[in-house]
Structures are given as structure tokens and as C-alpha cells.
């Protein structure tokens, strides 16, 4: 029970990841696949962010009036920075994937994977 | 033993490579110049190889390190008695074959002659390379070069049949050497840390029986060029090649390179003592004996002259393997002499087959009725070659068989003795009918005139004469062979 509740952030991220993974693997529609991919990546981002969280802590910005700096007071900023970069990567992957989908649509006039495979088979 | 460092072995290898380059550059338009290059290269090669003979006979060793690729993979030449023995035979026969080839190729107006002569030269380079290798790696490199450079020669006709034969040839030779020989070499290196050939073998005495046995048979299976059954069927398949190729390469250079490697492996990698203690020689001898008898029996049933000669080669090669496998001094000497004796005998026979094909366009034994009248020189030489194979006294083959029999007696093995005698009978069984047909049957009339090609007639007479010379004066060769064992 403790594992279930105490580490709920892990369970959420695993759940989200599996949803994304399921969409990537099982969905026939290409856009749904890409959306699945996004969910998958978001799950990882949540995972990173949740690891840096501390109770009763604040963002690591020094206020001028403050004089003593206690590391305990602040949450770890590094995962946030990393995830900022990861979001950039994610967005660009998303962009490329959408561009490829647009190209696919222009070629096959459909976004269903099985239909595209059908068309390819017919060509052969 | 004294060691001389000299680039002569490298030169011997390079001469024909340069020759091949010149041949390729000269091309078809200046065919006389091209043929001059071939002759020049072959004579120079023989000169270089022969110039090493006196030093070797004086109990010296010539070494030359070409290139250290890694700390243990070294291209290294070392000329000892065994190597120079084989190299001299091969390079001498190349001169003769070159003349013969010119006659054959021009007589048949073959295509792609430049390619033919160029690859021939490369193959000879690699053969001498194998003979002079100082370690397994160098030998393996040249062994592979032989395989690849003879592929175009076997596929020369470019017909479907030729391609199929060549494919089989390559599959057997390259496949087994990569799969078995290379593995064996790597296992050897892993066990001993050495790749050099050495008189006492490279293995320590405390190696396990299983490892040595596996490695030994990986080597034997990997050296398919020795045509030991059941990995022999590339040799008959290679008979689609033009006859000079069959004559020099598939009776002398390629197959002898295989047998030579077997000798090297038996004597210089494992060593007589190790094999004796594990009794591996007997197993090899059994396989070789089986090959001798089985190949002879198959040869009896072949109608195609070249195929019959091919199976005869398979059988004769196993004599050499058998001699080495017996591991007694006389038997080893016998097998070394047999390298030369068989070379001259078989090349004569192939030359005759080629000459008959060029002049009379006949390939089958059953078509040879009464041909001796039209081609007296050819058939006379053929008779000498056949007697050589059978092992009649005063012809070269007798000398080697004598030593082999002595070796079998030394070993006290009655089975081997009977194998040798039985195979001689079988040899007689498949050669004498040809001679009988040629001399005593009546020729069916021909629409065209059969004339011997002078180039070819001269060369095959020379090789036949040399066979007889070996039979009369066996001492020189025997002393050289004994040098190997000293």
C-alpha cells in the first residue's frame, strides 16, 4: 500500500506513459500516433519535474531582502531546466512528425496506416 | 641453421604481379608483346627461385619481413627446403605452360586472352607466396588470393556451365577456408600465441586431446584445395576451365598449394611428435586411403578425358596426404617427391588432353580411337604420363611410390601397403584402355585433317621427358626432399 500511495507520482507517470505507448503502437491513425508520442514524452517530463519537488519549498530565486540562503527552502531547479530543453526537443519532434504527416497526406490522401499499406501493396 | 635476410622471396612473388600489370596494360592489340611479358615474367621468376636453391641446399634459410600489420599478423617470408622445392616446381612448369597456353589460346582463338594471362600470373604469384610463407597468416592471405585470382580463369568461357562450375569452385574453396581454416588459425593463435611455422610445431605438449583434434580437423577441412574427400567435388567442377588452367593450376599450382599447406600444418604447426602421441595421423591416413580408392573407382567410370584426369588428380593428391599422415621419414620423403613427380606426370596428361581438344576437338575417351597415328608425339607423351601415374619403374612416379611403400613398411601397416598396391592397379585400369584405344583401335574417318600444334607438341614432349629424367636420376630430388626432414 505504501508503495502505491507513497510513490504516486511514479504510478501516474507510468500510467501516462503506457497510455502514450498504447496509442503509438495500437492506433491506426497517424495523428493519433503522434498524439500518443506527445503523451509519452509528457509523462517523462512530469516524472522529471516530480522528482525535484519538495514540500514547503519555493522556487529558487533570491529575493533581495532575504539575507540567509537555505538550500532546504528551494526546490531543485535543474530538472526544470532540463525539461525546458526536453520540451524544445519534443516540440521539434512534434513539428517534424506533423510535417511528415502532411507529406503523407499529400501522397496517399489518407492518414490511416492500414489504408496506406493497402495502397502500397496495390502498387506492387 | 643459418639465416640470410634477403628480399629475393618478395621479388619472386612480385615478378609475376608486375607481369600481370604489364599484361593488363599491353592488352589485346599488342598480343606478341603481351606474350613476351608472360614469358619474361615466368623465366625471371624461375631464375629468382632457382637462385635460392644453392643456399637452401647449404642448409641456410632465407627470410624477409615485408610488413608488420599488427604485432602478430605479419607478412613474413621464409624460404626453407620444402618451400623452395614446391616453388621451383611451380615456377618451372609455368614457363612451359606459358608456351603451351599461347598455342592453346591462339589455336582456339579464345576471347579475353589478356584477362586470362593476367590472372594466370597473379595466381602464380600467390602460389609462390604460399610456398614462401613463414606463418599461417601469410599463407592464408596468399591462399585466398589463389582462390580469387583463379575464379576468372575457371569462369573463362562465361557460359552458364562455366559459371556454375566456377561458383561451385568458389563456394568450396572460399567457404571452407573462411569457415574452417580461419577458425583453426584463430584457435591456434588463441592457444599458443604464435602463428609461425616451426619445426617442432607450435603447440605446447600439455594441450588437451579434444582441442588439438578439433583444430587439426578444422585445418584439414579448411584446406579444401587438397581435395580430400568428401570436399573434393570442386575439382571436377573446375574442369570447365581452359586446359592450360586445368594443367597448371588444377594439377600443379592450386591443388599442390593445398597439399603443401597440409604438409605445413602437419609438420610445422602440429609437429610429428604431437600427432604421433595423439594418433591423429592414422585417422588422416584412413581418410586419405579412402579418397585414393574411391576417386580411382570414380575415375574408371568417366568418359570425359579431363574429368577422368581430374578424379585421378584427386586420388593422387591423397597419396601425398597419406605419405605425410604416416609420419615416418620415408613416407614424408615419398610424398614430397610425389609433389614433383605427379606435377610433371599430370601436366603432361592435361597438355595431351588439351592438344587433342585443339587439334581434333575431341573431349571424350570413347572418341579417341586410333588417334595415335594422327598425333604421335601427343600420344607418346600421354603414355609416359600414364606410366608415371601408374608408377612403372624408370618413370618419376615410381620413385615416390617406392618411398611411400617404404614408409608404409616402416610403419608396419599392411592396410596402407595394400591400398597403395590396389590403387596402382586401379590407375592402370583407367589409363591403359585409353592408350589401347589410341594405338590399336581403328580410327573412324575424319572430315578434316588433324594436325598437332607445334607449340603444344614441343611443350608436352618436354614435360614427358622430364618425367623420365626424374625416373632415371631420382637422387637430386630425393636429396632435396631429405633436406626437408633434416
Amino acid at each position, binding site marked *: 500500500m505504501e508503495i502505491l500511495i507513497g510513490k504516486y507520482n511514479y504510478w501516474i507517470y507510468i500510467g501516462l506513459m503506457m497510455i502514450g505507448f498504447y496509442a503509438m503502437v495500437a492506433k491506426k491513425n497517424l495523428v493519433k500516433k503522434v498524439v500518443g508520442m506527445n503523451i509519452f514524452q509528457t509523462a517523462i517530463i512530469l516524472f522529471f519535474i516530480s522528482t525535484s519537488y519538495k514540500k514547503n519549498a519555493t*522556487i529558487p*530565486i533570491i529575493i533581495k531582502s532575504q539575507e540567509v540562503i537555505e538550500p532546504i527552502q528551494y526546490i531543485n531547479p535543474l530538472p526544470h531546466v532540463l525539461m*525546458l530543453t526536453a520540451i*524544445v526537443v519534443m516540440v521539434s519532434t512534434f*513539428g517534424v512528425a*506533423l*510535417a511528415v504527416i*502532411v*507529406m503523407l497526406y499529400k501522397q496517399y490522401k489518407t492518414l490511416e496506416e492500414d489504408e496506406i499499406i493497402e495502397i502500397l501493396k496495390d502498387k506492387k | 641453421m643459418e639465416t640470410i635476410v634477403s628480399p629475393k622471396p618478395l621479388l619472386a612473388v612480385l615478378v609475376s604481379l608486375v607481369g600481370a600489370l604489364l599484361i593488363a596494360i599491353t592488352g589485346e592489340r599488342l598480343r606478341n608483346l603481351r606474350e613476351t611479358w608472360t614469358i619474361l615474367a615466368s623465366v625471371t621468376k624461375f631464375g629468382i627461385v632457382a637462385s635460392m636453391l644453392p643456399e637452401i641446399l647449404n642448409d641456410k634459410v632465407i627470410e624477409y619481413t615485408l610488413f608488420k600489420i599488427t604485432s602478430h599478423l605479419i607478412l613474413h617470408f621464409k624460404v626453407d627446403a620444402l618451400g623452395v622445392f614446391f616453388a621451383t616446381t611451380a615456377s618451372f612448369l609455368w614457363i612451359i605452360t606459358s608456351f603451351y597456353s599461347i598455342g592453346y589460346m591462339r589455336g582456339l582463338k579464345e576471347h579475353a586472352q589478356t584477362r586470362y594471362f593476367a590472372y594466370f600470373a597473379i595466381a602464380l604469384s600467390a602460389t609462390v607466396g604460399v610456398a614462401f610463407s613463414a606463418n599461417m597468416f601469410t599463407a592464408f592471405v596468399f591462399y585466398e588470393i589463389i582462390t580469387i585470382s583463379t575464379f576468372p580463369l575457371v569462369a573463362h568461357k562465361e557460359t552458364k556451365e562455366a559459371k556454375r562450375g566456377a561458383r561451385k569452385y568458389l563456394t568450396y574453396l572460399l567457404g571452407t577456408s573462411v569457415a574452417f581454416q580461419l577458425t583453426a588459425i584463430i584457435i591456434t593463435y588463441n592457444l599458443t600465441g604464435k602463428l609461425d611455422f616451426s619445426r617442432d610445431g607450435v603447440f605446447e605438449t600439455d594441450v588437451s586431446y579434444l582441442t588439438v583434434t578439433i583444430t587439426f580437423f578444422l585445418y584439414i577441412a579448411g584446406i579444401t584445395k587438397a581435395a580430400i574427400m568428401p570436399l573434393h567435388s570442386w575439382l571436377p567442377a573446375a574442369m570447365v576451365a581452359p586446359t592450360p588452367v586445368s594443367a597448371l593450376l588444377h594439377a600443379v599450382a592450386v591443388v599442390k598449394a593445398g597439399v603443401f599447406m597440409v604438409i605445413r600444418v602437419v609438420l610445422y604447426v602440429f609437429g610429428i611428435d604431437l600427432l604421433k602421441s595423439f594418433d591423429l595421423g592414422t585417422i588422416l591416413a584412413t581418410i586419405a586411403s579412402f579418397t585414393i580408392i574411391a576417386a580411382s573407382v570414380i575415375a574408371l567410370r568417366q568418359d570425359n578425358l579431363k574429368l577422368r584426369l581430374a578424379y585421378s588428380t584427386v586420388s593422387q593428391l591423397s597419396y601425398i596426404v597419406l605419405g605425410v599422415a604416416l609420419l615416418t621419414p620415408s613416407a614424408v620423403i615419398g610424398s614430397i617427391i610425389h609433389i614433383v613427380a605427379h606435377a610433371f606426370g599430370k601436366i603432361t596428361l592435361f597438355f595431351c588432353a588439351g592438344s587433342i581438344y585443339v587439334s581434333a576437338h575431341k573431349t571424350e575417351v570413347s572418341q579417341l580411337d586410333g588417334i595415335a597415328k594422327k598425333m604421335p608425339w601427343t600420344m607418346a607423351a600421354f603414355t609416359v604420363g600414364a606410366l608415371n601415374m601408374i608408377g612403372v619403374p624408370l618413370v618419376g612416379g615410381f620413385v615416390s611410390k617406392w618411398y611411400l611403400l617404404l614408409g608404409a613398411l616402416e610403419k608396419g601397416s599392411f592396410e596402407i601397403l595394400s591400398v597403395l598396391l590396389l590403387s596402382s592397379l586401379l590407375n592402370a585400369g583407367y589409363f591403359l584402355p585409353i592408350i589401347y584405344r589410341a594405338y590399336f583401335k581403328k580410327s573412324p574417318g575424319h572430315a578434316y585433317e588433324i594436325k598437332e600444334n607445334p607449340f603444344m607438341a614441343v611443350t608436352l614432349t618436354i614435360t614427358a621427358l622430364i618425367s623420365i629424367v626424374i625416373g632415371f636420376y631420382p637422387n637430386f630430388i630425393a636429396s632435396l626432399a631429405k633436406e626437408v626432414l633434416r
Partner: protein
Amino acid sequence: MIRRTESLLVETVCRILIPLIQLFALYVIVHGHYSPGGGFQGGCILGASFILMVIAYDIRWMKHRFSEKKNTLMVALGVFIYSLIGFICIFLGAEYLNYGIFHRILPVDVAKARSLGILAVETGVGITVMAVMVSIFLNLTTYGKHEKGEV
């Protein structure tokens, strides 16, 4: 492909909103080095303002104000600013992007020099992010025909 809808409400709201958004974006960019924000976030907001402009009006109108050539120039410009700062650091004898070294050429101390250096870099990043956002959006909405001018 986005056509002009000519909805008065949308156009008016956007006309008021877009400058404010852009102002906020600039604020985020310039305060990025000592408070939450920065080039990337600011650039995104700035890019979003342009995208809003496209949605509210249409692409032709937008390209009239902010042509593709200018946009590509912006992409390159941002990266140039970023790399230039880095190279200046190398020429001054420090590691790439070690802007502390700017105190040699600017009349400030090391800490201030770092602050200024990162501001310059953030500006470059902001410009590039904005331009790239716009160009991704345009490429996707026009099926990639936007370069050929067939909007």
C-alpha cells in the same frame, strides 16, 4: 490554409492584444537572466503573438507585414548573436560562452559582465525561437507551399 474571416470582434481584440503580448514577451526575455523567464519562453510568446495575427487576419496580410525573407533573416540573426558572443569569448582568450571575460572590454566587473553576456545570448535565442515558431506554423498550415508563395 487560413482565409480572412473579417470578424470585427476578433480583429479588434487582436489589434489591442497583440502589442500587449509582444510587450510582455520582451519583458520575459529581458528579465530572463535573474527571474523566471528567458529567451526561449519570451520567444515563444512573441511567436505566439504573430501566430495570433495570422489566425485573426490571414497569411497574405501577415506576410505583407513580415515577409518570409525577413523571417529567415531573423532565424539566422538570433543564432548569429548567440554564436558571436561565444566567438568573442574565444577571441578574448576564454572558453566558448565564458562571458565573464567581457569585463576586459566593458567597464564593468565580472559578475555584471556575465549578466550582460547572458542577456545578449537570451536576446538571440528569443529572436530565433520566435522566427522558428512562425515558420513552423506557416509551413504546416500551408502544406509547405508557403515558400513558393502559393498561399
